[in-house]
């Protein structure tokens, strides 16, 4: 068990202009469960593979504990990895698959058998030990892949989208099992996924990446309530945060009927391009109000009934001077009178508004 540290790590593929991983600096504490999340192509898998030693590090360094492992070959890093497609050896039985690394490490056969047995017990795989991966279901194979990693008692677990090949229900179930397992074993874990729900529910901390750069690394709650930039704001949360272009005027931000007071430093920070900003607010920050109250009018385009929540998708149909036309998603109470084509009046809770610079995307407090 050890901490992990990336120090200004860069990886450029071939003659690409943009690095796949751009000057990444990240620290993972001993025993922490860190999730790397981001859209496809953001560099998260490359980041993970560099830690495994399967991908070259062009510049920068990677540390496991107090050891610089940047140039160390994978087999000497004392890490275990769960691959997206499991990578189980098709010609070996489950027991042989799980025991392979121990065999490579020279562990005596008796001890290997014992440890494989323990891991199999932990993952309810005992009845499959003699079978080959080809005869197992996807979920079972996933557990064998996990077992193969656990058996080694490594310093770090690496997991590359291990749930993406499972059906939805199994995914939810396995998610909690993995999190519980990690807590029990206490091994430092780095987990890559593109699914932000997985990220939010499993990680102690979540690192959001986009286009090779680390956007923000924080606990899920902080990421949700205080996103550092427009990308994180739009990526975290489902349905995503509403983001609109807007403009600051003398005494604040006009949202059709009421103004949001904006502090002087925020005004200064946003003082580019005549006060252009990006306004963000989550669906739950929107409420339905009566026709005659101050607010914005929207035409309902779709209604999503999810049982406990109802989401309304619409578009603002008039532009006021300070808020421009946009699409909006609002969460409304279950019995609200909404229907397709109807006009509704919406009010945005001023205390739930996030402001971002229109040019840099950074949060303006």
């Amino acid at each position, binding site marked *: 068990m050890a901490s992990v540290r990336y120090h200004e790590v860069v990886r450029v593929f071939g003659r690409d202009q943009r690095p796949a991983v751009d000057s990444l600096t990240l620290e993972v504490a001993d025993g922490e469960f860190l999730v790397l999340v981001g859209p496809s192509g953001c560099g998260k898998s490359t980041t993970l593979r560099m830690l495994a030693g*399967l991908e070259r590090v062009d510049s920068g360094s990677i540390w496991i504990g107090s050891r610089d492992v940047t140039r160390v070959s994978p087999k000497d890093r004392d890490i*275990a*990895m769960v691959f997206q497609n499991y990578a189980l050896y*098709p010609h070996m039985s489950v027991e042989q698959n799980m025991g392979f690394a121990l065999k490579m490490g020279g562990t005596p056969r008796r001890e290997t058998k014992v440890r494989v047995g323990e891991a199999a017990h932990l993952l309810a795989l005992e009845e499959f030990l003699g079978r080959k991966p080809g005869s197992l279901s996807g979920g079972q194979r996933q557990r064998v892949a996990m077992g193969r990693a656990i058996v080694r008692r490594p310093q770090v677990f690496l997991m590359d989208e291990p749930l993406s090949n499972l059906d939805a229900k199994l995914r939810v179930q396995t998610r909690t099992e993995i999190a519980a397992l990690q807590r029990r074993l206490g091994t430092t874990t780095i987990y890559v996924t593109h699914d932000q729900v997985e990220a939010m529910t499993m990680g102690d901390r979540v690192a959001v990446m986009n286009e090779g750069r680390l956007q923000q690394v924080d606990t899920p709650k902080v990421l949700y309530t205080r996103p550092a930039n427009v990308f994180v704001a739009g990526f975290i949360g489902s349905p995503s945060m509403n983001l609109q272009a807007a403009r600051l005027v003398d005494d604040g931000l006009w949202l059709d009927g009421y103004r949001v007071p904006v502090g002087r430093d925020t005004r200064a920070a946003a003082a580019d391009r005549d006060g252009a900003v990006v306004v963000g607010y989550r669906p739950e920050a929107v409420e339905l109000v009566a026709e005659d109250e101050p607010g914005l009018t929207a035409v309902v385009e779709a209604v999503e009934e999810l049982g406990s929540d109802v989401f309304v998708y619409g578009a603002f149909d008039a532009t006021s001077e300070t808020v421009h036309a946009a699409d909006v998603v609002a969460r409304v109470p279950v019995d609200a009178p909404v229907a397709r084509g109807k006009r509704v009046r919406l009010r945005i809770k001023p205390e739930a508004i996030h402001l971002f610079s229109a040019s840099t995307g950074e949060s303006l407090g």
Partner: protein
Amino acid sequence: MRALADLSIDAPERQAIRSGGVLRALRVRTALPAAAASTWWFVLPALALYAFIVLVPTVRGSYYSFTNWDGLNPVLHFVGWDNFTAIVHDEAARGAIKHTVLIAVAITIIQNAIGLLLALGVHSQIKSKYVLRVALFAPAVMTPVVIAYLWQYLYTPDGAINRGLGAVGLGSLEQGWLGDPSLALWCIVAVIVWQFAGYSMVIFLAGLQGIPPEITDAAAVDGAGAFRRFWYVTRPMIAPAITVNLMLSIIGGLKLFDQVWVLTGGGPGYATETLSTLIYRDAFQFGEFAYSTALALLLTVFVAVVSGAQYRLLRRQEYA
């Protein structure tokens, strides 16, 4: 269910069928047996050619090997096992059997070992892999006769090999090569290996390319160095390619004719005579048709036995 053929051309079922979707549900029952039953005659042309060129002559040959056939006289006498006992007593034939087996085994081992190494090299991250593949496979498509003559020159006492050795100061290693009874066979083996190592390589490459890279990655993470990755993970996963290569080399090696005939003609003396060259020689130089056919039957049995045994052995390693 109504017969498909009874449906009118506009029936919606027929439309669905034409679009292929419903077809799988309605499947085989009516359409295919009818088709198969009426297409049995499709095999006739191929069967006729095959029977005329391969089956009938083979049967005749097997029969003639038990007679005193001379290729001309239609009157034959059955002589039982005489031809075969003659083989046992014929020094040339015994030698030919020995050489045939030796060549086949040597080729199989050496050519596949080199082919495997080449495949592993080409399958790596090096930049010249495509050029290498084309260059190394090229000899395999070239006419064996041409290659044999080329090498015959290289092997002559003042051919390129001896001159080359002399030029780098290894003149003491110069040999008679094809003229040396103890070396000639190995010279032939070298030529075959040179020509077909690329062939083995290509088949191994196809096997290697079928291994998902994740699996070798996983083995690396599991602590296996390069050789152990190959032995425990790669090798079992290319077992089918190994089977194909070994089978092809053994059978090809046992039947070898062109290169031997051109390079040495079976000489010096009978030092490189193989079953194939002996069959040709006994029939067309000595006119011993029946004897030659007996040799051919022996070769056939050989090939059948070796193929069968090897196939069974190799199939087992595919599931190991």
